[in-house]
């Protein structure tokens, strides 16, 4: 593991403007915004897997899309391999097109992420075409074959001339993985790659991803709302709540000794492999507040079982608990 991170996010913010009605515009109401990502910082080391967990709507997908440039960031910096991500390549910048050659994203829904009118061969070969690589037909066929077989679709030729609708969900996700692998990326951003799949296929796909990661040494950002897959998959965990990372640390540390009340609650309801290790269930009260009107102070306080007066006023920052473990809670700030 070289010390420099492959990917670094610094104070990343992604806000979406809420569309205004003409009446509101006329009244000069201030533009509201959805604060989907609201100040996220982390560093991903080479060869490392970081899991981002959190409940639905906390901004996981938005982070992934922002990292790969599909959403424009509102504030903050993204550094890939030490260079700032920008529109074009430069001295200290890496252009989007170049970034998208070295980093690949896997989307949540394998039923929607394949062009229904393209053959599997064309889908897997597309990244090569886009980046003008492996131009010769033989070279291209070889690259596609390797990618498909690495993704577990054997024999590859059998799939070349098929259409996505002829494949099952698991097979489609393998095609997605193959097309992400064909460029031999250094970073893979996987947005809930198995959440749309049948439970019986999930393990297969997760095993595949883990093997590939070990074989190729790819760095991975693994997004999930399912804590039970995390232990198995990630080196580190970042727990998100309403657009912020509230706790981040080595998987072992966070799972065995969670410090943030939100992480504790999440863990207490996750199915534990060993029932004796089960903690007392903490059921969170209330709804997730919407990311337009964030609560004052600590954004978790309205649902926090241990909140005290200060929590309504003061917004906690990440506190260093150990070299590898940080959490943002006022109870820890002492």
């Amino acid at each position, binding site marked *: 593991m070289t010390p420099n991170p492959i990917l670094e996010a610094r104070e990343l913010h992604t806000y979406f403007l809420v569309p205004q009605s003409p009446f509101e515009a006329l009244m000069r109401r201030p533009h509201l915004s959805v604060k989907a990502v609201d100040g996220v910082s982390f560093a991903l080391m080479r060869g490392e897997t970081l899991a981002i967990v959190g409940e639905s709507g906390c901004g996981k997908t938005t982070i992934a*899309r922002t990292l*790969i*440039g*599909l959403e424009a960031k509102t504030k903050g910096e993204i550094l890939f391999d030490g260079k700032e991500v920008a529109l074009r390549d430069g001295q200290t910048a890496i252009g*989007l*097109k170049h970034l*998208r*050659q070295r980093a*690949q*994203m896997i*989307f949540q*829904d394998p039923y*929607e*992420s*394949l*062009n*229904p*009118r*393209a*053959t599997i061969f*064309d889908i897997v070969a*597309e*990244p090569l*075409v*886009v*980046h003008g690589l492996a131009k010769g*037909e033989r070279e291209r066929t070889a690259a596609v074959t390797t990618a498909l077989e690495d993704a577990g679709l054997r024999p590859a030729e059998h799939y*070349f*001339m098929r259409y996505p*609708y*002829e*494949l*099952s969900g698991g097979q489609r996700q393998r095609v*997605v993985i193959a*097309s992400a692998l064909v*460029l031999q990326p250094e970073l893979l951003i996987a947005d809930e790659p198995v959440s749309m799949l049948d439970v019986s296929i999930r393990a297969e796909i997760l095993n595949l991803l883990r093997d590939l990661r070990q074989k190729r040494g790819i760095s991975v950002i693994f997004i999930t709302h399912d804590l039970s897959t995390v232990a198995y998959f990630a080196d580190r965990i970042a727990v998100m709540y309403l657009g912020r990372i509230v706790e981040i640390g080595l998987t072992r540390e966070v799972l065995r000794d969670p410090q943030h009340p939100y992480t504790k609650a999440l863990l207490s309801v996750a199915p534990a492999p060993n029932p004796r290790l089960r903690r007392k269930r903490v059921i969170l009260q209330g709804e997730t507040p919407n990311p337009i009107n964030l609560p004052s102070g600590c954004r978790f306080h309205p649902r926090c079982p241990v909140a005290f007066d200060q929590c309504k006023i003061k917004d906690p920052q990440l506190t260093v608990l150990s070299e590898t473990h940080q959490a943002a809670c006022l109870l820890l700030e002492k």
Partner: protein
Amino acid sequence: MSDHWKLFLRNLSEFWKAFRRNKLGLVGGFLILTALLAAIFAPALTPHSAVDIMRDSNGRALTFASPATHSPLGTDDAGHDIWALLIYGARISLMVGFLAGFISMFVGSSLGIIAGYFGGAVDTLVMRVTDILMVIPDLPLMLVLVATIRQMDLKVSPLSVLILVIGLLYWTSAARLIRSQTLTIKERQFVARARAIGAGHWHIIRKHILPQLMPLIVTNTVLILSTAILIESGLAFLGLGDPTQPSWGTMLNFAFSRSAISNGAWWFYLPPGIAILWVSLGCILLGNVLEEMMNPRLTAHYLEGDKGMIAITDKETGL
């Protein structure tokens, strides 16, 4: 790659299998095909040309001869063979209709895709022009335009004027339709994925947007053909056709201006009328069936399996 060829044949045969089941579509295809064949093989279908004048044994022109005296469809006021006029007219009517239809579809699709995909100022501009063109009634506008351009005495054939005016004015509905489809397609995840692998706009439009639009474009081309042919007939009937290259509309114009009705010469005006109906009905039937077939929701699911497998139909379950 021979694989691509095999794939194409497979798709074609699957299309034909689905298409074959639909009687109306077959009728539509038949109507269009017969008209096309008649136009292409016109010289083989009649010994006369459109300008030959039929004469009786005394050498006098056979005017207003009924089908009984001169087969198969009689003659007009100057002694031209109606059947010959009809099938040579098919060449003109179909050519103008097809070219105008293709132009309007091409313009409409291009503008629709550009407006829908890029949005912003381009979108606003295209949509405003569409709005303006849509509120102006087509036929009067085209009439005025064709007449004016003719007056200007440019060195363009009257038929080209007709083709261009219809083609360049009749794209608005196609543009709207294609734009709205493009708007939904560009939000789909495979487009986001294409962007995420670094694809540019041109690549995305060509490889991801256009293939999804193709069924819609094909269907609407077929439907717009019927409109283009009807408009051509209308304009020609009003006297804006090319009298030296008579189309079906021109034939109707002649029939009315040369008192076919008062002479009771139904064989003069009925055949071109039926021919226009024949082709436009064919286009509408075919277009509607294609529209139904190409609805993506009706495409096969992988669970349906190979064609060899027996699907459980409603009849078998009794449901």
